[in-house]
Structures are given as structure tokens and as C-alpha cells.
């Protein structure tokens, strides 16, 4: 970790961003809690504890922002080198989730594993296909025949 320089210049630090996010989150919760009865200390209502926790989130978020210049690296120095990988994997997993109940377990998972290995990892397509078929087939057999647990089927 890079220790920040002692003189306090106004640099946007990671904890400034993180703290602001938490403060926003806390405010959002309070805004969303409008119709929940707060009740009293002796008989807390549905909105009582959420309100306390939201306020605490804001307070701790502020603390994070205030201490940021002493404790956290500048925001610009965060390493996003893995960002492309993360984005690709997230997109493929999201597609798999969207299709899972439509295409069923076998088709979705074959496509997901092949997509990950060919698009993200750029592996040889034939080996990838064999690997995917073995893995998906093995899992399907253990769930459906070994444990009598139905997995989503095509079209279901």
C-alpha cells in the first residue's frame, strides 16, 4: 500500500469515494423508508431499526471520508487492470442467469463454459467443447440420477 504523503493536499482518495457511496446509501434507505412506521423505543415499529442502521451508515461513512487522507491511497492509483476480465465474466454470467430457466441447465451451462473459455480465455475450441460436455454431463448425472434433484430443463 502506498502511504500518502504527509502534507495534506486535496487529492481524491479511495475512501472519499467509498465514504460518499455509503453516505448516499444511508440517505437512500432513509428516503425509501417513508411509509414505514418507526414506533417508539418501547415498541419499535417496522422502520425503527432500519432508521438506526441507516443513520449509523451515514456516520461511519463520514468518519471514513474524514480519515481518508491519512489512511487510504489516492483514488487515481487504484489498479483496474483486472477490470476487463471482471466485465466480461460479469456479462457472461448475467447472460447465463437470464437464460438459465429458459434454455435449461444443459444448454445454458455448455454455452456459459464455452463462452468463458473461448471469449475470455481464448482457448482451443475443440478442447473447450470436450471439457464443457464432460463437466456439464457429469454434473447433470450426479444431480438428476444420483440425487433425484431436478435441474431446469429446456423450455421450462
Amino acid at each position, binding site marked *: 500500500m502506498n502511504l500518502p504523503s504527509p502534507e495534506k493536499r486535496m487529492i481524491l482518495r479511495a475512501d472519499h469515494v467509498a465514504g460518499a457511496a455509503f453516505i448516499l446509501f444511508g440517505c437512500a434507505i432513509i428516503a425509501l423508508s417513508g*411509509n414505514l412506521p418507526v414506533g417508539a423505543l418501547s415498541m419499535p415499529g417496522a422502520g425503527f431499526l432500519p432508521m438506526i442502521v441507516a443513520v449509523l451508515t451515514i456516520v461511519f461513512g463520514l468518519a471514513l471520508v474524514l480519515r481518508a487522507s491519512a489512511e487510504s491511497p489516492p483514488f487515481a492509483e487504484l489498479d483496474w487492470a483486472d477490470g476487463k476480465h471482471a466485465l466480461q465474466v460479469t456479462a457472461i454470467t448475467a447472460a447465463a442467469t*437470464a437464460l438459465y*430457466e*429458459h434454455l435449461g441447465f444443459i444448454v445454458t451451462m455448455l454455452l456459459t463454459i464455452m463462452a468463458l473459455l473461448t471469449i475470455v480465455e481464448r482457448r482451443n475450441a475443440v478442447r473447450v467443447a470436450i471439457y464443457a460436455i464432460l463437466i456439464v454431463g457429469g454434473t447433470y448425472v450426479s444431480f438428476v440420477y444420483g440425487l433425484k434433484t*431436478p435441474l431446469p430443463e429446456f*423450455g*421450462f
Partner: protein
Amino acid sequence: MDRRSFVIGTAACVAAGPAFAQGAFPSHAVTILVAFPPGGANDTVTRPIAAALEPILKQPVVVETKAGAGGQIGAQVAATAKPDGYTLLSHNNGISGYAEVDKLFGREPKTKRGDFIPLARLVADPVLLLVNDQQPYKTVKDFVDDARKRPEAIVYSSGGLYGATHLPVAILEKATGIPKLRHLPTNGGGPALTALLGNNAQISTQALSAAAPHIKSGKLRALATFGATRSKVLPDVPTLKELGYSAEYYLWVGLFAPKGTPADIVATLSAALDKAAESEQFKSVVANLGVESSYQNAKDFAAFWEADAKLSDEAVQLIGKQA
């Protein structure tokens, strides 16, 4: 809260099933959705009936758990399933009340009773008015007198707000004219019983089968039954009707098909169910559970459900008014 329209993936996909359901019903596996987690009465009685149905329908009958939100998720998924007879629902008393509770909170009801066709009632377990052994009450009268005097001192436990063990207390409060008692909601029948046994609650209304072992051991006393007749297991416990209070309530488990299922398929299914209910396997499970008046065919169940739901609506409104 903004009321965005939404489509739940699950429901939409179920409805989008392929149409190879031609020819004689059933041509492939039938799925029964159970709206409550394993361990509850729904799961316990649905599995044996499913097993007994298989040789009659000559197709696999798969039991699938779709639990959550007090049974609402299962009901909602079944209501939006393709009405082809291949997706059935196992539910309980809860299915009667969702619309009424939603109305109370000003929410759009997600499922209504009209979304389902009753096929059969599998079991009906009379509810008992129970007290633990640290309470002085020996009769319903003792209890009612004390409750009139100090309603704020009596806590009752239930398996959940507006649930099947909460509503009977509201019915009882109305029938006996006692003021509102303090309500301790828990996460299910088991925890509610535990609260009563540990004297964290003083009274509770629970199903006969769940309470029977504790009555036998003397930890709990049954003051009365909500059943229409006295139970064979507990012949000394009077019915509330005998005592002059008009209150009747059962915890029941029923099977439903989604609205729009063709009449001939409904007929096939209910005939198969009538036959499956006669099987040794199902009968022995029901007997072992200690449940008595139980199976009803589609016609009787429809009439029973109608009356029961009316009661349930009244109780929900009553609780809503008090709150």
C-alpha cells in the same frame, strides 16, 4: 412505493412451456409445487400422495418446493403457471387470506382465490386452544374470565402474522368477546409451540397433531378444540361449539390446479386423487401424523373452502381493525 409492473422470471418461464401435451392426459411428469418448506405438514402429506399418484396416473409425480413469504411465492408461481394440469399446487389455509391482507395494507393483491381450482383436501387438523402447565386455567371459562380482567397480561404465540395459528385467536376473541390479547409472532408452528412450552407465551392455538405429544406429557393442557366434534385422541377436550362459542377452525392442506385448467383434466386429476387417498401408504401416513377428519374430494372441498375462506377474511379484518 412506486408500483412498477414486473414480471417474475420464474413465472414467465413456467408459462412458456412447450405444447407437447396433446393426447391422453398425462403424457409426461406432473409437478406438484409445495408452497412451504420441508418439515411442515404440507411437505409431509404431499410426498406420500405424490408417491401414491404415480401408479394411478402412470407418470412420474415430482414434488418441488417453492417456499417463501408465508406461502405466497408458491401460490403466485402456480397461479401464473400454464393451466394444463401438469403443474399443481399444494397449499394450506394461507391461500385464503393473501388478498384480504393485501387489501388491509393497500397493496394490489397478487393472487386471489379465484386463481385456483380446488382439487382435494388432503388433511384437516383441528386447532386446539392450549395453555402451558404454569397457567392456572382449567377450562375455557377460567381463561375467558381472566382475559376479561387483565388482557394485557396474557401473551399468545403464533406461527406468523395473519397465519393459520394467528387467525383462530382472532376468531376466539370475537366469539368470546374478550379484549385483544398481546400477540407474539414467531417464524412458524414449531417456534410458536416452543415459546408456549418455555412460558414465553401463555396461550397458543396449535394443530392437534403438533401438540398431542406435549399434551400427553402434561406440559400443555388443551382447554378446547376448534373442531366440530371432539377428537378421538382427546375425548375429554370439549369443542368450543359445545361451550356455546361459535368458532371452528382447522389447519388444512389442499391441492389446487391453476385457473383455466380444462375440465376433463381436472376430472381426471380429482378421480386419481380420490383413488390415491385410498392407498395404504397415504392412509398410514395420515394416521401416523395423528390427523383425523381428513380427505375431501373436489366438490366437498370447494364448499368447505368457500366457508373457511369467509371466516378467514373476517378474522383478518378483525385483526386489521385492532391494529
